[in-house]
């Protein structure tokens, strides 16, 4: 019954293993020349979409990313993992700093309607801002049901059963499609993009082109006032004992 189409949102973030440095003027963290990769939870979302496609429950996977030009790399990774098409919503580097969950959710909602998808998959949160908002807001804009913190996703005809990891334990929801699902850590273990898939992602990416900015206007989002290291309160914690260099 492979008629379903899925939209997977992927975010380009600073790689988890990089040592974060705060900029000297304390307006943010250093991102220039720093290694970036796909948000780990987004990888899990892509993997889930690809598995659904392999089970022939989903027909097409569209990967979308909002941000500066380098987001193309992230989309290509998604394509190499098994997505069919990529959409890059280009945001100039200067404005990308102010891009927050609200703006991204608006974009995703518009795209989901435009592409007529049945399932929107995202990671539960990004490892740089830890907002945990985009999925929920997207569902709000679309007025679709949402299953967040998913640790298991099962498609059942026109419904999707989502097992959620919540504070009290596990909660199982049955949502009517179309729906928004955000992936939690234990949903699956993402595959590596194999080399042949990486080579094959090239032709795929060039077919997608950029989703243009007519999708959603970027209004001024939140403005970051300052960013710095946490104050050392003398507590035994390995992180706070690392020296600032």
């Amino acid at each position, binding site marked *: 019954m492979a008629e379903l189409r899925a939209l997977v949102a992927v975010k380009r973030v600073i790689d*988890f293993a990089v040592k974060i440095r705060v900029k000297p003027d304390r307006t943010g963290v250093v991102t220039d*020349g720093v*290694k970036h*990769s796909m948000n780990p939870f987004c990888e899990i979302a892509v993997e889930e979409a690809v598995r659904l496609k392999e089970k022939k429950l989903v027909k097409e996977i569209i990967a979308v990313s909002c941000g500066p030009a380098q987001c193309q790399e992230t989309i290509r990774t998604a394509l190499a993992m098994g997505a069919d098409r990529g959409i890059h919503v280009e945001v100039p580097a200067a404005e990308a700093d102010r891009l927050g969950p609200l703006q991204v959710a608006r974009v995703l909602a518009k795209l989901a309607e435009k592409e007529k998808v049945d399932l929107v998959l995202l990671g539960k949160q990004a490892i740089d801002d830890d907002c945990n908002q985009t999925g929920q807001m997207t569902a709000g804009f679309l007025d679709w049901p949402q299953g967040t913190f998913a640790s298991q996703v099962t498609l059942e005809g026109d419904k999707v059963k989502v097992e959620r990891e919540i504070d009290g334990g596990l909660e199982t929801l049955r949502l009517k499609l179309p729906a928004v699902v955000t992936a939690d850590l234990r949903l699956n273990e993402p595959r590596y993009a194999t080399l042949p898939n990486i080579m094959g992602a090239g032709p795929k990416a060039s077919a997608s082109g950029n989703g243009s900015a007519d999708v959603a206007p970027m209004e001024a989002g939140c403005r970051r006032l300052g960013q710095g290291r946490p104050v050392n309160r003398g507590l035994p914690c*390995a992180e706070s004992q690392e020296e600032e260099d």
Partner: protein
Amino acid sequence: MEGMVMRPLRGGALLRRNFLTCLSSWKAPPRIPRSSQSEALLNIANNGLPYAPLQTFTEEEMMLKRTVERFAQEQIAPLVLTMDENSKVEKSVIQGLFQHGLMGIEIDTIYGGTGASFFSSVLAIEELAKVDASVALFCDLQNTLINTLIMKHGTEEQKATYLTKLATEEIGSFCLSEAGAGSDSFSLKTRADKKGDYFVINGSKMWISHAEYAGLFLVMANVDPTRGYKGITCFLVDRGTEGLHIGKPENKLGLRASCTCPLTFDNVKVPEANVLGQIGHGYKYAIGMLNKGRVGIAAQMLGLAQGCFDYTIPYIKERVQFGTRLFDFQGLQHQVAHVATQLEAARLLTYNAARLAEAGRPFIKEASMAKYYASEIAGRTTSKCIDWMGGAGYVKAYPVEKYFRDAKIGTIYEGTSNIQLNTIAKHIDAEY
């Protein structure tokens, strides 16, 4: 950050948050140092004009490098210690190499290969060597020696028979050296006598890498010793052919997970169809292919040295003696800068030789320079790293001593340093 906890859970390893984080077991994934982040993406709009720095990669090369890096960190790193101790490579590692297309990087996709460039092989070998030089050797020999030989000189039938297997499941072994023929490889004594439509091979080989795991052997034997080296021919011999005996693996100083065995050929019958290329041209093929092989070894030594260096620097930035970080002693800083410069030079030599080879331009001198230099500085870098780590560098609980042992073979195999210098001098002679 959640991301920090997540990755180790996936790999099954534990991230131990010790006070001196660097003294945690080397099974924990290390931080990505800034030094190895100087890559940029090739601007295709430039038509790839060579004004770009050597460390400029295409998108595919960049993705490949990243993927191999992750694969090496997550799937190979936890097993390195046991593989070294037991002198045995884990099956899962070999399977992983095949599954990720790392054993058929340049093989055409119609045969099930990856269809990528030679430079991609170099990058893959370098990334693997940062974690384990033995595993990198599997990737290197298969891609630069075995696959190249068959792709270049194989008939359509031979390619169809072997290339797919080599890309997906079978390891190949290159058999040239003998007890009496090392640097002087063309004085090899293994004979191949023609008997009807068969050749019968008799003789023995020594120092043959991966013989224990290989399914295919490329054997260099002489069909007519009276013609000297012009009788050397390359034969494709399948494992299990009667008369082919694989000896016990050597107990080596380094590269222990890569098994090295002697072979004996006792009236091994090989059909005429299994001659690779032309009879008597084996020496030409060997020389030709060893040129690219040199760049591969340079990449391996480069990765090894870089991996060792990347492990050591965070340590000396954390360790404090006499109230000062080791890294803050100027004497040490000078040593570190010296080694880092040599590493950079080796990288540029290697990348340039690879790009020259890809461009179809002459690269033999550059390849020899790259191999010679990379292997020499790998030895020096690893030795220095042990010095900087102090006692911790001397024990097997930390990986530095393994890098040191593994580096030694670099100046010896695939053309000793002396041979490389000979080659370079020969080219210089021809230039002036």
